[in-house]
């Protein structure tokens, strides 16, 4: 059983990322459940997806029990830490999307160091991914989400093969597939010890 908690901001392609994980699991012949937030969350709000691989019934991940937190945005990484424990792997994009509340309500956007400290205090490991740059270098600047899926796949925690992910990407992405696979590879290499 692998419990993955995906967070970010509306418009970052998190649901697509979760569908790729889900399709990869189905291709591998495993049971998988995904849940996603819709509706109000589409308008630039925080977005949460869960992905659970294994013989589970509930799609939800209670506090302190995520195996992986895959965050597409730095502030949302911090917000997701309620799901973390000392056995949680945290992978976060360096991307910052400053919410309006920082402009209007005297909230402060946390520094990268603040995030790293909090993750270090609560979790097992922390990997920062410069997803936007890796995606841009691959020729698909909008595909940070694919880089993040690559970083997740590279850890091997999911128990799925690289080929399952690559086929799942082809099932979900029609335009610029080769470039997207390159973006995936860029993320994969960051977390994969063998590559």
């Amino acid at each position, binding site marked *: 059983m692998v419990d993955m908690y995906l967070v970010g901001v509306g418009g970052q392609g998190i649901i697509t990322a979760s569908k790729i994980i889900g399709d990869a699991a189905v291709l591998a012949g495993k049971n998988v459940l995904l849940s996603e937030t819709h509706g109000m969350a589409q308008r630039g709000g925080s977005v949460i997806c869960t992905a659970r691989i294994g013989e589970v019934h*509930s799609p939800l991940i209670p506090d302190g029990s995520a195996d992986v937190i895959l965050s597409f945005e730095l502030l949302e990484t911090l917000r997701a830490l309620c799901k973390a424990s000392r056995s949680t792997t945290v992978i976060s994009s360096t991307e910052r999307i400053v919410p309006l509340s920082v402009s*209007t*309500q005297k909230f402060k956007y946390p520094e990268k160091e603040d995030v790293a400290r909090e993750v270090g205090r609560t979790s097992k490991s922390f990997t920062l991914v410069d997803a936007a740059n890796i995606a841009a270098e691959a020729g698909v600047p909008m595909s940070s989400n694919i880089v993040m899926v690559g970083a997740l796949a590279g850890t091997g925690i999911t128990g799925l093969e690289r080929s399952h992910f690559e086929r799942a990407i082809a099932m979900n992405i029609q*335009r610029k597939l080769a470039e997207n696979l390159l973006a995936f590879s860029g993320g994969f290499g960051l977390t994969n010890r063998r590559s």
Partner: protein
Amino acid sequence: MVAEERACPLADRSKRYFLYGPNHFEDMERILEAPPGSKVLLLGNEAIARGALEAGIAIGTTYPGTPASEIGDALARVAKDAGIYFEYSTNEMVAAEFAMGAAASSVRAMVSMKHVGLNVAADALMTFAYTGTRGGFVLVTADDPSCHSSQNEQDNRYYALLGGIPLLEPSSPQECYDMTKQAFEISEKLELPVIVRTTTRISHVRGPVTVGKIIEGLKKKEFIKDPTRFVTVPAVARVRHKVLLQRLKEAEVLAEDSPLNRTEKVNGGGTLGIITSSAAYNYAMDAAEELKIPADVLKLGFSHPVPTEKVSRFLRDHRTVVVVEELEPILERAVRAIAQHRSIQTKIVGKDDGAFPRLYEFDQAIVAAGLNMAMGASPGSQEAQPVQAENLPVRPPVLCAGCPHSATYFAVNKATNKKAIFASDIGCYTLGIAPPYNAADFLVCMGSSVGSAGGLAKVNDQPVIAFIGDSTFFHAGIPGLINAVHNGHRFLLMILDNRTTAMTGHQPHPGSDRGPSCCDITAVSIEEVVKGCGVKWLKVVDPYEIKTTTETVKEALQEPGVSVIIARRECALIAKRDEKGAISKKHYIDQEVCKKCRTCVDRFQCPAISSVDKVQTIDDDLCAGCGVCAQVCPYKAIKEAK
């Protein structure tokens, strides 16, 4: 691999459709083209659509609403290729009535809606249970425990009890698919409408679904007249109510034998029994496994009428039975009634004992706490918590960059100096509740802006402005407007016409000129409807023109009766995707000219404009090029990029 050259067989179809989802080709392939026996990852809602296609529906209808929207959206995309008729109806009542007319003529029909949509359709449904149906009639309703995107968390299982209607409750995408198919069988066997009730965590969960064969259902039929059944004058209704109660007895027999009501063993089974349904079943299974509690689980997929014999046997076989269900204690009260009636002494534990909350959606941790209490292992129950902001910068949903509603609200605030009462309605524009606009003071349901505005105006001296979206106006705003004209109310109605049903995923509405794949549609003019309601003062503005909009609002508020302004500008997301944003020039803030007055962040709201360390800037990627901020800035510091 040359990916972009891979021919997408469905690519050319996109232009005819109204939907803009990035992945709708793939989803369409899945729902329509997944071969029999294959296992595909489907959203619960998509699985319902596939199940309906395999049941051979002739008719699908809906009014969009989260978390039910994807059922209709899936059917809308595939309707033409699947050879079915699908429509986005004006509201849930019309959607249900349309499907009833078809089903009374012996074809199969499905109507889907969010939970509060059934409040609108209930008038028709309560009496359709009396007439019954000839062809299978399935109403899908999606509840929203925790109000993820709704104004309440009502439990729609009560409608099954209220109307005397068989109820199916799937727990997974696979069951969404299975039960939708079975619902049509049950409906035809009993000649009754059947409710399939999901929740957010059923409709919006993806999982593997093994699909079967899509069949071509009966599409045309000759209506056989039978007014003594289908025309519910009192003399007919009295007879049909009796028939309904007889059919419900037959339904209970079906529920007794239904494989949808089954017993499972967790950790080898035991003297603890759990009775559960819907999403709560999932949490109960995971919690019992996690806690290593040996238990028998009676899962009720066909939960109304409750199978009395099956529940009695289950009670007698267990020393303690825990009832696990979200929201209202409906199963629990039914189980307690059965125990009392049959003099069964089994200890029954549920919400009435405080083991489980009556609020919000559950998860496995909440159910584990309840099971622990039932086992006597732990004293207290864990309260379910609403989604809470921590001590971090909050990130609520906001109006998008370039959103015409944002411009409208800025203009209205300028015109009224915020000294007006704002009756709001359901849609993206409800987000105007937040600062800096504070443009929502009262809201209960679809259409309530227009209806409540009259009452607010009658007993207050402040001016009253009602805001309603184009789709919501067609849905429920028109009777309120007629009422206001007829009874001489005084308020300004602003119809925020962004040419789509934006919040739920850009579905069309009666004013749209693009519809589902199967339909030839006619756009209904909002102006003509407003005039037809008897409104004498009507103006149309482009909300991107702040000055004109502001002046028009001031002028409208001088009117002694009902005045209407249509603020018309296409949703910025659609304009962006169609690459026809009106002004479409990126803007920037000239820091040399900027006086740091913060008007652009304190009185206007745009996700592209941020203020960090007292410096306001525009994010070039996010800027929609609407140019509204340039009109907002008092110092002309915001300029078009070269």
